[in-house]
């Protein structure tokens, strides 16, 4: 946690709202789109606050190098990467220690949801690319990657949402934005299995009392449910069944049935007039 000082208060005087206008337990705007890339087996795009994150999935496919193969199950290899232009001070391209750690814990989180035992000797590759960063990028990446896995048709126990809560000026708040993240005093990122409420990823840094930590995790649990709804809806939009609404194929109205004099047919009113 940065410990840098903000120029203004991050919690408003009422103690119930934040500088960006959100309530303490309110999420930033979130939108998810499934199936955005052509080449990948599955993909998803997430905009969350000012985060813009793309995820792609390949596999199950052959493992390279071969010695990583597991004869009993598939391995899940996640790669979290930040684009050099995703932050205002250019980030040196390529993996650093932070992104390697994030990649590792996300790989582990997904290994427990994917039915890895069905695909021995293969790998499921999950790529997350942060195009614009605004705090909570690992959560946005994981949220996008879950949708991409489903889009790729990889059998899973559930679609996993992820979110971070934390502490800003003595208040526990949900879904930190960049300023809250750098000036706040704690950050608790989680990934939660919606069906059981189990945590697949849990990290914490900063300073929280036990009660504060419980509240942050409670916020995360509730937020995860909401995020999961958006994930599922994004998939439904891509794979929904469209029903034919107008079954009539002729452009003209059908001819009047025999026996009814043609004069009796009512003409539609002329266009534009009442």
């Amino acid at each position, binding site marked *: 946690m940065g410990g840098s000082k903000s120029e203004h208060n991050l919690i408003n005087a009422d103690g119930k709202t934040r500088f960006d206008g959100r309530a303490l337990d309110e999420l930033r705007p979130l939108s998810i789109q499934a199936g955005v890339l052509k*080449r990948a087996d599955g993909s998803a795009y997430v905009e969350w606050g000012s985060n813009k994150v793309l995820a792609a999935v390949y596999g199950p496919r052959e493992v390279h190098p071969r010695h990583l193969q597991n004869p009993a199950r598939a391995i899940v290899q996640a790669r979290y990467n930040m684009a050099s232009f995703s932050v205002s001070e250019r980030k040196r391209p390529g993996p650093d220690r932070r992104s390697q750690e994030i990649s590792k814990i996300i790989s582990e989180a997904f290994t427990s949801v994917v039915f890895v035992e069905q695909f021995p000797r293969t790998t499921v590759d999950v790529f997350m690319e942060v195009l614009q960063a605004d705090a909570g990028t690992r959560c946005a990446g994981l949220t996008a990657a879950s949708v991409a896995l489903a889009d790729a048709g990889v059998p899973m126990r559930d679609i996993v949402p992820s979110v971070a809560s934390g502490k800003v000026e003595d208040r526990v708040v949900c879904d930190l934005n960049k300023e809250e993240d750098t000036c706040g005093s704690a950050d608790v990122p989680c990934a939660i299995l919606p069906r059981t409420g189990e945590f697949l990823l849990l990290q914490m840094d900063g300073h929280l009392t036990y009660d504060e930590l419980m509240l942050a995790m409670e916020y995360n649990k509730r937020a995860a449910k909401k995020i999961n709804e958006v994930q599922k809806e994004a998939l439904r939009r891509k794979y929904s069944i469209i029903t034919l609404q107008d079954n009539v194929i002729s452009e003209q109205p059908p001819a009047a049935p025999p026996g009814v004099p043609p004069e009796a047919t009512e003409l539609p009113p002329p266009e534009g007039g009442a």
Partner: protein
Amino acid sequence: MENDVVSDLKREYINRMLAERKRLDGRTPEETRPVDVQTGVVTSAAGSARVKWGDTDVMVGVMVEQGTPFPDTPDRGVLVTNAELIPMASPYFEAGPPRPESIEFARVVDRGIREAQTIDLAKMCVTPREKVYITYVDMHVLDFGGNLFDAGLLGAMMALHTAVVPAKRHGNGEDFKLPVQHYPISITSAKLDGGLIVDPNLDEERVAQCRLTVTTDENGDIRAMQKGLVGKLTFEEIQAAIQNSQRCGAELRRKLGLGVK
């Protein structure tokens, strides 16, 4: 670019169609794919663009930082071009240190920008011999559908064209528009058994003998060229590739309002 193979059937089919001046995606041999450009796609960068060129999807971010000039150009800004073929974009791209393919890609685009004197680097000097602006052009390939070079340079141009130098952040007075003075565009032609085509898509690229990338400026002058792959080109084929580049480049520039007087 990709080390996978194309079936003989498809190879033959592509070439047989080309003999009748037809292509699998319905284009004529001289036609480029539709191009869609969005600018200002990330606010963290000084300038950014996302180019969808056929099935190829490239994102480019331009960032301007402060640094020391090269000793031999003490009063000029510095340009650094970098390309990332991230494994998201194709089943054949791998993470890790840059491979020859991405180095060639970055260098061909860099040469186009540099040789066309796209950026007025004299205006990118803060204090001679001490402080200049370094312009980083970072290209990120998101979806690989063939012909990266042209999509990459176009993305770089659109990002540069819309970039603002964050002078205030570096304590050098007011922000200003990045001084772009020329508009290079590259168009790649590929040589197949069946003849020369403009803007190869993924399948065409796989069966190509070789390719020639020609970068022209807004006057139709040639600023950079790069032949790639193992095949040979005749003088006539080179001429045709240059003319393709001039014609398609002018068309694109007009469509996007780049350097049109």
